[in-house]
């Protein structure tokens, strides 16, 4: 149900006039804001052709932007696969009947969800070699790529574990009771009854989390991973001295990718709501589900 239907009646003659006046006023205000920004940009000579020209030349794309984009996508893809595996393992761990599996899984998931990803990446980047040196072992070389990917895996994997758990829990208990009554065992109930239905229900939430993961690869910039942000803010700027144009182009690329992923999530959500293959309530793409760290400790 759209918000307009709830908040407003169908406009009558007076409301229509009022809406037209409001439209005019808001157009004027928006144009005014746009003008102020444009004048500021013009005053600092940001519209000069020489700042924007690099982006219509092929070598800017082949030398900086595309390698940067590949760096971002590579980190995101590897981290996404690892995070899904991590999420399944720890999500199942939290659903286990054995307390000695359930409690450690819960502790791991809640820990990584409660701390900022950035300090985790810092520690993963420089921690292992410092600790190895202290223990007189050969220091491992941790590349920026490894630190970013492992950090993203631990954080997003923990969030995915919660999504996974919420997905399994959203299936009515009658489903597993019926399966047990048919004589299936725990593994069979999970594999044949719960997971297939939960997958449909949690697909949208998983895809939305992948958008978060893709955006978070940009944190790699801080430890000098060569991603899209690095291409824009370091390499292109160093070559052409055009920070703002580079930022705008890079931002547009991120927005395009994330909007595409986001609309995939919305499409999956609508498909899942229509689906008769699952009895689970669809986990929406909204950030609402599941709650943040500390908000879902119920067991």
């Amino acid at each position, binding site marked *: 149900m759209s918000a307009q239907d709830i908040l407003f009646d169908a406009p009558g003659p007076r409301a229509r006039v009022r809406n037209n006046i*409001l439209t005019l006023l808001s157009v004027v205000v928006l144009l005014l804001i746009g003008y102020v920004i444009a004048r500021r940009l013009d005053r600092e000579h940001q519209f000069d052709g020489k700042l924007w020209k690099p982006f219509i030349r092929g070598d800017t794309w082949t030398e900086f932007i595309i390698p940067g984009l590949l760096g971002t996508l590579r980190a995101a893809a590897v981290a996404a696969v690892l995070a899904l595996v991590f999420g399944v393992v720890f999500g199942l761990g939290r659903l286990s009947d054995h307390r000695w599996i359930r409690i450690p899984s819960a502790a791991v998931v809640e820990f990584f969800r409660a701390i900022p990803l*950035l300090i985790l990446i810092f520690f993963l980047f*420089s921690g292992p070699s410092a600790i190895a040196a*202290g*223990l007189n072992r050969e220091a491992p070389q941790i590349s920026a790529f490894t630190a970013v990917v492992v950090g993203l895996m631990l954080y997003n994997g923990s969030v995915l574990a919660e999504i996974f758990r919420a997905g399994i829990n959203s299936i009515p208990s009658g489903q597993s009771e019926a399966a047990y009554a048919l004589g299936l065992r725990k593994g069979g109930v999970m594999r044949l009854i719960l997971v297939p239905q939960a997958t449909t229900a949690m697909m949208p939430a998983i895809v939305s989390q992948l958008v978060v993961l893709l955006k*978070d690869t940009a*944190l790699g910039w801080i430890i000098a991973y060569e991603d899209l942000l690095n291409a824009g803010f370091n390499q292109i700027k160093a070559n052409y001295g055009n920070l*703002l144009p580079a930022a705008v182009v890079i931002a547009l690329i991120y927005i395009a990718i994330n909007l595409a992923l986001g609309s995939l999530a919305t499409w999956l959500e609508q498909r899942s709501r229509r689906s008769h293959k699952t009895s689970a309530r669809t986990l929406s793409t909204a950030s609402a589900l599941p709650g943040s760290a*500390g908000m879902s400790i119920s067991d």
Partner: protein
Amino acid sequence: MNWDVLFDFSPLFKESGAVLDSFFATIRLSVVTGVLALIGGTVLVAMRVAPTPVLRWAGTLYVNTFRNTPLTLILLFCSLGLSDTLKFKVSESSSVNFFWLAIFGLSAYTAAFVCEALRAGINTVPLGQAEAARAIGLTFSQSLRLVILPQAFRAVIAPLGSILIAMIKNTTVVLVASYLEAASQMKDMFEEYGATLPIFLGFAIGYMVITLPTGFYFSWLARRLAVAR
């Protein structure tokens, strides 16, 4: 063998003043950003549900732009773009300037998420509620004030709590806007004492002391105020 890298918590105690100061900086950032993002998000949601198409488009454009851009990029844009290239200054003192630039970027980013949560809240109110309100003769502002918004606000407490916690964790990224808070303090201590496990754990616990109680509080509040349907 030097076991200090695993068990020596003394650097944290030696620098306890600086560590506490850095966490106060984090809290200061979070509080100001939280207030500004809530105001910004409310304005945006008013635009996104307005009966005027132009405002709806502008709101949608803003939300899609900021929600899909990495925070690192936004904050870099604030520090390098606004401050260095466009010569946008809030204050002559550079630390005050960077504080407000960081707040500006973080609030602009968080407001988009607040807007989406509030909009989802309005959408959780069943259409029948509005129809019933009109049927008993409530005016537009009465039905909004007495029926729809109270239900909408109570539905978004938990999502707003999640956004608040995510925002507290995101204050670490203001590192790129050159404002000193807990994450940059940890980085400095890594450089001075080496990247040892106890320093990392100390800061991780510091963040958990802030985020976990916030989470408990919001989930308690959400349960307490949930609308029974």
